[in-house]
């Protein structure tokens, strides 16, 4: 009987011994991972502001190419309730298109859909100029910008799988603006 008991304990100890290295590894890995655990994830909307650059005197003047394709400028104005998209002809400044949507993520997504259509017609359109009313809160601004910066697929005909995002340039805030 005594021998049987000893054999049982021996077998049990061998099982534990086999798992011990794995247990030790877990004890090291788990605290290490816990210390790096992300309890929240950040989102980032990339924009730029118009920067004034000094002309380089050493640089030779590059002759301007005559651009035969028609160019347009996309302007987005964010207000408390509505976000307005204005497409302007760069030659004469005339409004090509004017649309309004809610100042929400959904509204901005609608505007992005319009911009995508316009982009298919005017290939060189890559930048959206954004003006914001000065008392629009940060949350609203970020939601609209998130909508405008969503990736688009199939914009590049050569590489349809390549993601395209419009560049957003933040213009100075406006206190009052007559957009009608």
């Amino acid at each position, binding site marked *: 009987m005594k021998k049987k*008991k000893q054999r*049982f*304990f021996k077998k*049990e100890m061998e099982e*534990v011994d086999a*798992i011990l290295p*794995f*247990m030790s590894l*877990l004890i090291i*890995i*788990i605290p290490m*991972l*816990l210390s*790096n*655990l*992300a309890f*929240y*994830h*950040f*989102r*980032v*909307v*990339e*924009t*730029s*502001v*118009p*920067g004034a650059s000094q002309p380089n005197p050493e640089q030779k003047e590059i002759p301007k190419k005559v651009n035969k394709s028609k160019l347009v400028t996309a302007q987005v104005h964010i207000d408390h309730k509505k976000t307005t998209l204005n497409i302007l002809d760069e030659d004469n400044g005339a409004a090509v298109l004017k649309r309004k949507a809610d100042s929400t*993520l959904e509204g901005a997504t609608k505007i992005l859909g319009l911009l995508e259509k316009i982009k298919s017609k005017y290939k060189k359109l890559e930048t959206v100029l954004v003006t*914001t*009313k*000065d*008392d*629009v*809160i*940060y*949350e609203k*601004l*970020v*939601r609209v*910008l*998130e909508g405008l910066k969503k990736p688009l697929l199939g914009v590049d005909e050569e590489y349809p799988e390549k993601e395209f995002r419009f560049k957003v340039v*933040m213009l*100075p*805030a406006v206190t009052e603006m007559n957009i009608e």
Partner: protein
Amino acid sequence: MAGKFTGRERKKPEKLNITSLMDALTIILIFLLVNYSEVSEEKEIPAFIELPQIEGKAATATFGLTLVIGENQIKVGKADAIKFSNFDREKDTIILEIKDQLEQMKKEKLERNIAGGEKEKKIKLTVQADRNTPYRYIDEVIRGASELSLNYVDFVSMNKEAK
């Protein structure tokens, strides 16, 4: 005699069952590996702001020079917060102070980049603002920063998992 223990009763050998413990640890390990943050630098959200939450896919966020804008204070990097009671009245002093701190941070960042052998990349300004901050606060600050050639601005929000 019922209920009476006798010395002759054999004790069952105690068996340590670690299978369930191993299962639990393995699940924890998988969970931690999935949520592992690759960001080496810990980024905390200051207590004086509440970031807006936006639904969608999580993306990796890289931080530049951090600027935290709250209702009545602005914090540049790890420097002490600049407190104010009326932004519109005190904005000239606030912007001047922010510009000084940003210039210092930019210089340090460039020195670190050079020491680390990195090529001079564009230095971004990362704005974390309270969800109710009016845009004019942010606008004044980013205009000030653009005078220091900080022309790339990232607006930070928190990712809310899509349902």
